[in-house]
């Protein structure tokens, strides 16, 4: 498991100003984890996400949003904990 620089945890809906702030601070060595209403990004046709993207399974299942592996790696809370450990730094937006 390669470490990455920053794990960005994003729980905002795609229309929220914080969603854009978070994306503008992503760089190639970072990873993005979508949680809560952040997972709506996977259903939003106006958005394209790039790079290492993860999404919480429980939040997807609750909202009936298809687990599209071409957009995001779908993970559980155990893997979320593991991601926070792999990262040198964690930012919750």
């Amino acid at each position: 498991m390669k470490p990455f620089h920053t794990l960005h945890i994003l729980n905002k809906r795609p229309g929220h100003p914080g969603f854009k702030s978070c994306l503008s601070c992503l760089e190639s060595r970072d990873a993005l984890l979508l949680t809560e209403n952040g997972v709506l990004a996977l259903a939003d046709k106006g958005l394209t996400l790039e790079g290492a993207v993860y999404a919480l399974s429980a939040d997807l299942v609750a909202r009936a949003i298809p687990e599209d592996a071409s957009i995001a790696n779908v993970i559980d809370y155990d893997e979320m904990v593991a991601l926070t450990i792999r990262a040198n730094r964690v930012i919750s937006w």
Partner: protein
Amino acid sequence: MSSPALSFTLVITGAPYSTQAPQTALAFARATVAAGHRIDRVFLYGDGVYLASNLASPPSDEANWSHQWRAFLEEKAVPGVACIASALRRGIVDDNEKQRYELPASNIAAPFSIAGLGEWVEGVARSDRVIYFHGGN
């Protein structure tokens, strides 16, 4: 887990009902402990202090986030701390504050206690990871 055990401070700034923060934080906390890591403390800040009320009574077929958090903290012997300044503004008080401010009751749920931001600074300085659970609105 083959990785070495780490220490965490969790900070919850979103209230139950207004936000999903207390729920996500609890699922994360359970997974943290299950993986063999240590939680130094759970710190409630801003609207997050509402989680420490012992008066919430949601309908019986709904989750009671305050109950679930209290059971977790007790079972795992994890300290739960509500920021005193946030708590006083929002009407979450312990017996000390009740007396000091001559209030008609106290309503903090054990094992939560009230303390200053120094508890959080301690986490920033000493825990391996500080993870924030904010509101999402």
